[in-house]
């Protein structure tokens, strides 16, 4: 009977880490595989934070090696997510010019269809100029 209780407790301990891992995995799946939009992943971070909270509750309710390990894992996951999104993925200081009201420097570059695009020749038109990272 005691063994069964222990088994149940250790299974419950798995829930929080799995939730945390699923939160992060889902973020990468949605942002890279489906690439619908790219925003700061607050909702996914909330899932990871919820996992940490859940693991803490489990640890308090049924203290033991399984719940302690689960809580430690969730702390590590939150630390990783925090480092990755708040530090690693930051560009680290961005140029502020040209800013609103300032002229955009002229340039002339080839287009995908083999023509030449010169910004100066586009005067009189409104241009949405998007510098994107690549075609992936």
């Amino acid at each position, binding site marked *: 009977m005691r063994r069964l209780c222990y088994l149940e407790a250790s299974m419950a301990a798995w829930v929080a880490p799995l939730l945390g891992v699923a939160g992060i995995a889902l973020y990468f799946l949605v942002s890279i595989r489906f690439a619908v*939009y*790219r925003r700061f992943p607050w909702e996914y971070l909330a899932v990871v934070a919820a996992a940490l909270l859940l693991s803490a509750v489990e640890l308090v309710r049924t203290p033991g090696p399984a719940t302690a390990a689960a809580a430690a894992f969730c702390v590590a996951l939150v630390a990783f997510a925090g480092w990755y999104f708040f530090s690693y993925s930051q560009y680290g200081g961005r140029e502020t010019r040209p800013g609103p*009201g300032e002229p955009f420097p002229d340039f002339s570059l080839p*287009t*995908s269809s083999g023509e030449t695009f010169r910004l100066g020749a586009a*005067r009189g038109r409104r241009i949405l*100029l998007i*510098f994107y990272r690549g075609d992936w």
Partner: protein
Amino acid sequence: MTELGELRKHYRKILDAGVQVVAVSVDPPASSEKLRRRLDVDFTFVCDEAGTLMDVLGIRHQGGLPPAFITGVRPGEREHDDIFAATTYLLDEEGRVRWVSRPESYRVRAPAREVLRAIEGLSRR
């Protein structure tokens, strides 16, 4: 290219506001042309393979090219691993900047909603 796919859904509205969309990347013309066909949209795709505008605009993301399993770019295929930090400018008829989006994180792109709001702002002037 996430931001391009997102804007594609609002292309009619952007055209109606008299705005030409010019998309610049370090991709070779063949890749950009393939992307243009895939998105099936009349954006002008400009190729700055050498990254000549990176330092002019201060938008170089040094070594920013993701691993090959994401990009399909084989190691050594390109001269450098630098790409543009995702940046969006809205220019008026005089070639002046009216609005800029410079996300702090490379996981973030200019939201279409904000781009459309900036375009509406142009028309109200």
